């Protein structure tokens, strides 16, 4: 079903660089590492999206294979306002039953076959409760019940959701990425998205700005999700179309079109995306574009800013831009970086204004490539995350999706979480949102580092704990 793509693309060079930056990921690491260091010295203000791994693609033919049946459950808190179900005792004759129904002035009586249960509308002017109160004293009635509402679980019907999106809902499956890559996942090692979606699936008025390589605005997962064509600070125009894959992938994780029976689910189903292109086709960019992009996104209504990118150098203007976002009510989420260094990238390292995100895997293990340091706030799944990719990028023989690893892919999980919090509680301040995300995290590495640590901060995010009311017992 899946095959590792072997042909090179225009992004191959970037991938080589990305691989080379990861200790232990390629034999050519040292040479490329030197290259990267010298480049940084020359271009101090350069930022980049360093993808750790990407490639295994979903073959187009696989689209036909996936059928998911959604379970239903009873929502006990609500029922039909005018209907009840009644079961009469077996010894009650048909005539007695009909007389009784007439006496009560029940309406639209229908038998549910096989189980001797009747559904009916309650008498005019009476509530369901009043009618049930009357019937419960009738010796001929076995039971009388309200007609409870049913609904599907807030589990999306997107075809890849149950099979590949362990990051959102991990059932403990074998993740069938390629014949060579088939990890066994651990149930529950996810961000607990499904119970959180029972609370909210997002508000379209909450906009997530994705500052990245742009977004493929024609992609099935994004075409109805982008609020505008955005802004391209690299080419200085108003068309933030992705000329890579990275921004599209990130946007898909945060807020892909969900419950549309195709493709993937996003973290914040109903929230919108504002694409802001600050990284070029090669995966690099400059601080000035990033700074301008942050301010532009805030001024254009973004409540959450996702920056799956970063640079190695602190910069007062960048910090000022982050403060501007924070002061104007927006939450910034940024990737820690994939260099496995004791140095969190900027802007993630601006602890007061930005949530720094590390990556975990399908077993809640900490990813080896994470940058680390005291600025790390939380972690989210970031290994082989399936999300959208431009069709032209993957080639016509594949579906427009990619598995990608890196803190870049962990970051939009947190951005989506922040967007859901704003959707549910629009009055929250950025500080409150950031603290909710921090304090509700699962300390998944507590056996090694109890409490907040430099590797995953407070822990892997837990959207259920952040959104579902805590029960006081």
């Amino acid at each position, binding site marked *: 079903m899946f095959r590792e793509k072997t042909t090179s693309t225009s992004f191959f060079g970037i991938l080589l660089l990305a691989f080379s930056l990861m200790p232990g990921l390629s034999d050519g690491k040292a040479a490329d590492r030197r290259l990267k260091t010298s480049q940084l010295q020359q271009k101090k203000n350069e930022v980049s999206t360093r993808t750790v791994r990407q490639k295994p693609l979903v073959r187009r033919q696989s689209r036909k294979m996936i059928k998911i049946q959604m379970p239903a459950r009873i929502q006990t808190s609500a029922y039909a306002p005018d209907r009840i179900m009644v079961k009469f005792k077996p010894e009650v004759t048909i005539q007695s039953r009909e007389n009784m129904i007439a006496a009560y002035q029940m309406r639209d009586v229908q038998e549910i076959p096989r189980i001797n249960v009747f559904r009916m509308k309650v008498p005019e002017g009476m*509530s369901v409760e009043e009618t049930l109160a009357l019937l419960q004293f009738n010796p001929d009635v076995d039971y009388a019940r309200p007609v409870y509402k049913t609904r599907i679980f807030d589990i999306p019907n997107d075809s890849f959701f149950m099979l590949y999106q362990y990051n959102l809902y991990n059932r403990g499956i074998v993740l069938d990425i390629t014949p060579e890559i088939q990890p066994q996942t651990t149930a529950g090692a996810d961000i607990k998205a499904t119970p959180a979606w029972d609370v909210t699936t997002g508000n379209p008025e909450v906009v997530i700005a994705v500052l990245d390589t742009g977004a493929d605005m024609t992609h099935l997962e994004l075409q109805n999700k982008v609020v505008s064509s955005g802004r391209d600070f690299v080419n200085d125009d108003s068309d933030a179309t992705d000329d890579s894959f990275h921004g599209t992938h990130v946007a898909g994780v945060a807020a892909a079109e969900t419950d549309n029976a195709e493709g993937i689910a996003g973290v914040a189903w109903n929230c919108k995306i504002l694409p802001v292109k600050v990284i070029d086709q090669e995966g690099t960019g400059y601080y000035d574009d990033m700074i301008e992009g942050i301010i532009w996104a805030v001024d254009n209504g973004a409540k959450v800013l996702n920056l799956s990118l970063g640079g190695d150098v602190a910069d007062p203007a960048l910090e000022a831009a982050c403060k501007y976002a924070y002061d104007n009510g927006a939450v910034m989420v940024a990737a820690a970086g994939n260099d496995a260094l004791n140095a969190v990238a900027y802007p993630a390292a601006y602890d007061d204004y930005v949530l720094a995100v590390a990556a975990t895997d399908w077993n809640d293990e900490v990813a080896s490539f994470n940058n680390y340091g005291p600025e790390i706030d939380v972690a989210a799944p970031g290994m082989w995350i399936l999300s959208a990719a431009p069709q032209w990028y993957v080639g016509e023989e594949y579906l427009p999706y990619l598995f990608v690893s890196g803190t870049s892919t962990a970051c939009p999980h947190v951005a989506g979480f922040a967007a859901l919090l704003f959707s*549910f509680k629009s009055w929250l301040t950025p500080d*409150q949102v950031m*603290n909710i995300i*921090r*304090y*509700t995290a699962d300390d998944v590495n507590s056996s090694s580092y109890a409490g907040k640590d430099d590797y995953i901060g407070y822990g892997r995010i837990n959207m259920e704990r952040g959104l579902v009311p805590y*029960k*006081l017992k």
Partner: protein
Amino acid sequence: MPKSMRLKSIISILFLISAVAAVPSPAGADTIFGIGYLTRSFSSGEEDTVYKLKTLMLSTGQSFDFSSGWKLKLEAGFALSNFNGLAFNGLPVSLEYSAGGMPGVALGASIGKAFWLLDEFVIELQGRVRSSLSLKKNWTLEGFAVPGNASGTNWWAEASVGPKISYHFFGKFVPYLSIAGSYFTGAFNMKEKLENLKASEKKTFKGKSFLEVIFGSELIVSQKLQFVAEAGFRPYKGGLDTILTVATLIEF
């Protein structure tokens, strides 16, 4: 309980006492032991959700019969107020009360006087107030990445006024029907603290029903012993609340 509400409750009870104090001294007094259960549906602010308070009350007090015909009952005791399901989504981390009965102090008073006698029927006007003030309850918030706690207090009060028709044909067994306008209000204060996240939410609420119908009976065992049982309901659009009360009046 906020000062204003506390004041109102005290004033209400004092009003009843002073109304009776204006008339001559009681001709007789009974000690009351009562147990009551009531449900009260309410909504809070703009919320569509209808919550239900379930309260169990144990009380004791005095019933005074005045020569002027006024009857006054004053009661105090213990209440367990169950607000299960009440959600506090105005806090950064939402909390839902699921702790069952929250203990508190119960206060109650009623006053009535017969105004019309027709054969075996007696019609009297009756007013009743009842309230509860909870003790503060603390919870430790577990499972979070930082230590946390929450604390809550609540109060509620209800008042009703209406006619009571009793039928005295059976002598020692006196059934009666009471129909009254009824008003319910209250508030629940919840505080939460999770390291730097500190917030509080006050949910004020009003009852959904404004009418109560009570069927009751008095069983006069002797001059010194009397039992009272009541069952009633309070209808509202889309639901029904219930009231059950059993009391014993003993003259020592």
